[in-house]
């Protein structure tokens, strides 16, 4: 790689792509002792060319590769793609399908936030307890998903025009059971993690991102809301059943790593509320309208936005006459947040030990930034 040059006084450390905390990217740190002077993110280690693949697949086939983009949060991103197809082909979706979609999306969001939460614990060296607690609690969600969709992660559950299957017998009750169990567990997380003195010392006042910087650098999702700006696609342009559901957009005013972690923590609470609402109030009716297997599209374009666990995901689909999309542009939240991460060390003083904490407070998922 044509690596940027460094000042002679600094030492360049390369983290990753094999590093416990870097994930699938390479992070170059220019350090002077412990102090970080510059961060360079070298992305692309999981680049698969999904945008090109989608051009060669039919509309329905595209659901499979696009769900592999964010394996931990497949429902949200799959929904974005499906919504783009529906809008460009003009397909109506029945009411019940909207509600089921919201339910699955929230399940998926909790699972994603839990994962981020566990990694945040691990990044402070708190591997033992919390990280594996979150994996335990995710099994509750995964079991629910498995019962509904037949798969643990990649379920390809949303189809243009509705969802694949109806809720199983008594599924609502099990959702409520799971919600109650998770609520109890979340009290433990608060005591064990957020109120832990060492964890507080590690996260408070680390990497402060001021609101104007967050807007200027294009941050999104919990990173933006952690800076006190209330932007959430679910509220701004409600899709699925979010217009009917009662929830609030979580913001924290502290702007530091702890604020971003707390946003995730409290968003999980909102998601649990929403799951309960869906389980209690879901309307009846059909679950999908017919979607023809072979569809010919008209020239046009659709830009659909969804709120994934990591922030706003935009899918811009251009159609021409034919069976495939002409081009699908995926605007991923992680790529936006990674730029913020690169700049954070200039905005606020950062030590080497802070970098894992900061990167996990950003919660990147490189598979979606690399596409």
């Amino acid at each position, binding site marked *: 790689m044509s690596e940027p040059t460094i000042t002679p006084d600094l030492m360049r450390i390369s983290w990753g792509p094999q590093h416990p905390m870097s994930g699938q990217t390479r992070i170059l740190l220019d350090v002077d002792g412990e102090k970080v002077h510059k961060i360079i993110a070298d992305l692309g280690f999981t680049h698969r060319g999904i945008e090109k693949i989608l051009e060669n697949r039919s509309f329905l086939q595209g659901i499979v590769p696009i769900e592999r983009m964010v394996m931990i949060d497949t429902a949200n991103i799959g929904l974005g793609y499906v919504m783009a197809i529906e809008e460009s082909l003009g397909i109506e979706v029945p009411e019940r399908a909207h509600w089921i979609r919201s339910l699955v999306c929230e399940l998926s969001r909790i699972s994603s936030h839990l994962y981020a939460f566990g990694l945040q614990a691990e*990044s402070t*060296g708190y591997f033992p307890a919390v990280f594996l607690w979150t994996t335990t609690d995710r099994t509750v969600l995964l079991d629910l998903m498995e019962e509904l969709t037949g798969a643990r992660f990649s379920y390809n559950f949303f189809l243009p025009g509705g969802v694949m299957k109806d809720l199983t017998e008594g599924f609502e009750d099990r959702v409520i059971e799971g919600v109650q169990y998770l609520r109890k567990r979340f009290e433990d997380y608060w005591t064990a993690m957020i109120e832990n003195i060492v964890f507080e010392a*590690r996260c408070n006042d680390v990497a402060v991102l001021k609101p104007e910087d967050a807007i200027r650098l294009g941050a999104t999702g919990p990173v933006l809301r952690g800076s006190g700006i209330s932007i959430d696609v679910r509220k701004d342009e409600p899709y699925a059943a979010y217009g009917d559901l009662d929830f609030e957009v979580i913001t924290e005013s502290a702007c530091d790593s702890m604020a971003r972690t707390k946003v995730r923590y409290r968003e999980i609470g909102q998601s649990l509320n929403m799951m309960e609402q869906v389980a209690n109030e879901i309307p009846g009716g059909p679950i999908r309208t017919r979607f023809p297997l072979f569809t010919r599209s008209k020239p046009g374009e659709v830009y659909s936005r969804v709120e994934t666990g990591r922030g706003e995901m935009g899918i811009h689909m251009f159609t021409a006459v034919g069976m495939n999309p002409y081009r699908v542009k995926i605007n991923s939240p992680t790529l936006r947040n990674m730029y913020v991460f690169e700049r954070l060390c200039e905005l606020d003083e950062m030590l080497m030990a*802070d970098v894992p904490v900061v990167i996990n407070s950003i919660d990147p998922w490189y598979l979606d930034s690399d596409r």
Partner: protein
Amino acid sequence: MNVNILASIWNYATEFLAVNAKPLLQIYVLPGLIFILGFAIIAVWFERKFLARAMLRVGPYYCGKRSGVLQVFADFLKLFMKEIIVPKDMNFLFFAAMPVLVSTVPALALILIPFDANWVLWDIGSLGLPMFFAIAGIAPLIPIFAGWASNNKYGFIGAFRVAYMYISAEIPLVICGAAVAIMAGSFDLVEIVQAQRNMWFAVPQFIGFVIFFLGVIIESERTPFDIPVAEVELVLGWRTEYSGILFGFTMMAEYVMFQAWTLLFITLYLGGFNGPVLGFLGVTGSHIFWMLAKFAFMVVLIVLIRTVYPRLRLDQMLDLGWKYLTPLALLNLALVLGMKMLGVY
């Protein structure tokens, strides 16, 4: 003729054993080889099982009849039979000597610990405590050399973190040790223990007790102070380049260091080998028993701390060392001197 030679050899051997039974036992069994190795093995197994329990898991299970006891042996044998990779442009002897030294030098300090008034391997009287600090004070130098020798950036940074940390931790430790020595009126570890017959020093010197407890965790590089080997930042710190059995030695060093400092902590503050005499063990036996029991309690406590706290940052640790522990240690010393002058103790 032959019979005579054999008989004389037999006589010699029995005489030798009769005279040297105690030193041999001390060298090979109690403060010596078997205790050190056995502790490392049991501690690793216990820690893995205990942490697994804290994570709601089972931990090592299938290796060794559904208990995982043989897990450590499997790991050790595997490491023993693994290729050793030496970094390019590096003196192999220097590189390989460091892990061996880092696990043996703290073990030398163990020979000063009294398990009973008569069960001290190297009884040097009033030089006991200074000698312990001298030997244990060399130990941090070795990781620094090891990190430098591995020609690796992670190792290098890890080595310097070791240097920062030990200096900030060892000064309060030495001051606390001095306070204990003043209170007991002697540098002799046996006499320090005997001075605690009525009351453990943990009570009059509570501040020193807390400082020394933190110091023990810092010296043995355990969470929340495992900063030089912070996995999420430095991969494995100064151990990064060591492969095969050399890595096994560096892992063992952590436990040996832990053992030496914890035993000193018990000696200085928790009454050492003092305890009610158990009839069936005899006086020496029950002293050794109490020492080991206190040691086991400390091990459980320190492993428990690992499950509860994340890791501190280096600057926070240095703050703790210089801004809090050192002044508090001096305060502790002043309090002890005051008590001595007023004749309270």
